[in-house]
């Protein structure tokens, strides 16, 4: 390997959102996977030092070992590196550890009944189909704002049981609350949006406590763990967690789907003409997009990962985006292949914290793929996509295209 050009990654700060916009990250991940699979990112102006795992096997092992690597103190860099972390740590499902995590998660999965699922998915498919049909042949539009943005929030709100007229407002607040769409939004603006969301949610929760309905919100509001009901704050933060977790990720995957169908016409043909199943295309879209770039854990014991000693208290990050391109596991990982088999990507995570909304995420992306297949002949890109500004999320916040129909 002495003939390869040495790329120095020390100036690359993985805690700085700018890094992901300025660098060719494929090159950075390749180098990390090959040369520094257990890399220690030094402390920087963004925060303290943390470990970086980039190979599939190591990322998978971290997900599996929820005894030594916990989620309670936070599950992403932004919250883990801040002095006071995230107010939701230890309270929302994604940042709770066993046995409490398993108890709440199991009850919620059971509350996600076939009746609710078919209600949510039917409305989803209708909404997406009408949207896509209305955009075909109308000239240039933005996939991110005119299509993707209008899908997940309605779906999560249907699932939780928020009234339809409130969906728009929830979308705006959740956009600001995650603070990833625009560089330059102040921390105060972010916190303000988060607080507004919390106040709104708490009102609806009260209503469901008084009069439970057949929705996830009521399940959360009336749930008991070991005979003790969840506190208002826990119910509220979980609703808010679902909104945040399910909104951006699905949107990014949908934008990625359209972008990649446009960039790789042979793959679009395969989907359009039915050579590849929508279900298989959905898996490849999730692998390729990897909307959640990393997850973070905190070590609670001294553990060796390969030849490096991780000490109790250390923050360890697992980079799904790199694992999903690991050539040790995937053939031709840098090819977008809608018929890829097998495709055991880690786009939804793994283990105890496997994406709770994976079922809905797949349904949402699948609905977009099927509606495109039904209404669209050709996808024309009308401008450069605009990359998102985030260490946590990955994808595009804008993608101008026009869709041409079959006629």
């Amino acid at each position, binding site marked *: 390997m002495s003939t390869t050009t040495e790329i120095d990654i020390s100036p690359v700060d993985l805690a700085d959102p700018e890094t992901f916009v300025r660098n060719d990250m494929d090159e950075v991940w390749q180098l990390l996977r090959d040369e520094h699979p257990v890399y220690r990112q030094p402390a920087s102006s963004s925060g303290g030092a943390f470990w970086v795992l980039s190979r599939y096997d190591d990322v998978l092992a971290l997900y599996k070992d929820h005894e030594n690597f916990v989620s309670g103190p936070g599950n992403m860099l932004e919250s883990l590196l801040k002095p006071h972390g995230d107010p939701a740590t230890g309270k929302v499902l994604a940042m709770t550890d066993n046995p409490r995590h*398993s108890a709440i998660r199991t009850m919620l999965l059971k509350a996600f009944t*076939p009746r609710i699922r078919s209600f949510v998915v039917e409305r989803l498919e209708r909404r997406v189909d009408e949207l896509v049909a209305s955009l075909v042949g109308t000239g240039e539009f933005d996939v991110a704002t005119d299509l993707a943005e209008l899908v997940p929030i309605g779906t999560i709100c249907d699932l939780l049981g928020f009234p339809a007229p409130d969906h728009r407002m929830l979308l705006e607040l959740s956009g600001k609350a995650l603070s990833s769409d625009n560089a330059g939004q102040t921390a105060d603006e972010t916190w303000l949006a988060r607080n507004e969301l919390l106040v709104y949610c708490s009102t609806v929760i009260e209503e469901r406590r008084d009069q439970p309905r057949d929705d996830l919100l009521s399940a959360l509001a009336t749930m008991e763990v070991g005979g003790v009901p969840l506190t208002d704050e826990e119910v509220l933060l979980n609703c808010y967690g679902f909104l945040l977790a399910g909104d951006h990720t699905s949107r990014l995957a949908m934008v990625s789907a359209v972008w990649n169908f446009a960039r790789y016409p042979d793959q679009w043909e395969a989907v359009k003409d039915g050579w590849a199943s929508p279900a298989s295309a959905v898996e490849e879209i999730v692998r390729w997009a990897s909307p959640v770039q990393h997850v973070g854990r905190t070590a609670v014991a001294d553990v060796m990962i390969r030849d490096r000693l991780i000490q109790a208290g250390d923050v360890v990050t697992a980079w799904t985006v790199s694992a999903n391109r690991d050539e040790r596991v995937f053939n031709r990982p840098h090819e977008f292949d809608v018929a890829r088999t097998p495709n055991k990507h880690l786009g939804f995570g793994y283990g105890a914290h496997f994406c709770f909304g*994976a079922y809905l995420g797949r349904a949402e992306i699948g609905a977009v793929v099927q509606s495109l297949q039904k209404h669209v002949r050709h996808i024309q890109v009308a401008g450069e996509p605009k990359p998102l500004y985030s260490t946590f999320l990955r994808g595009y916040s804008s993608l101008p295209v026009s869709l041409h129909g079959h006629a």
Partner: protein
Amino acid sequence: MLIHADVDRCVGAGQCLMAAPDYFDLTDAGTVTVLRTDIRADDVVDVERAIELCPAKAIKQRHVSRSD
């Protein structure tokens, strides 16, 4: 055709009960339990989807001959 679920491999992702709710459920411990092991002809697609979606590959189908 019979279904077998390996509780030791199960990670409680819950995808099987989404795909085939007549066949899979989670116990209070958060791991898979098989509700019925014989697959109705109409449900083969759902059960295969459950097997495919399990991130831990904990569910297997076993083909059994009539003489078993």
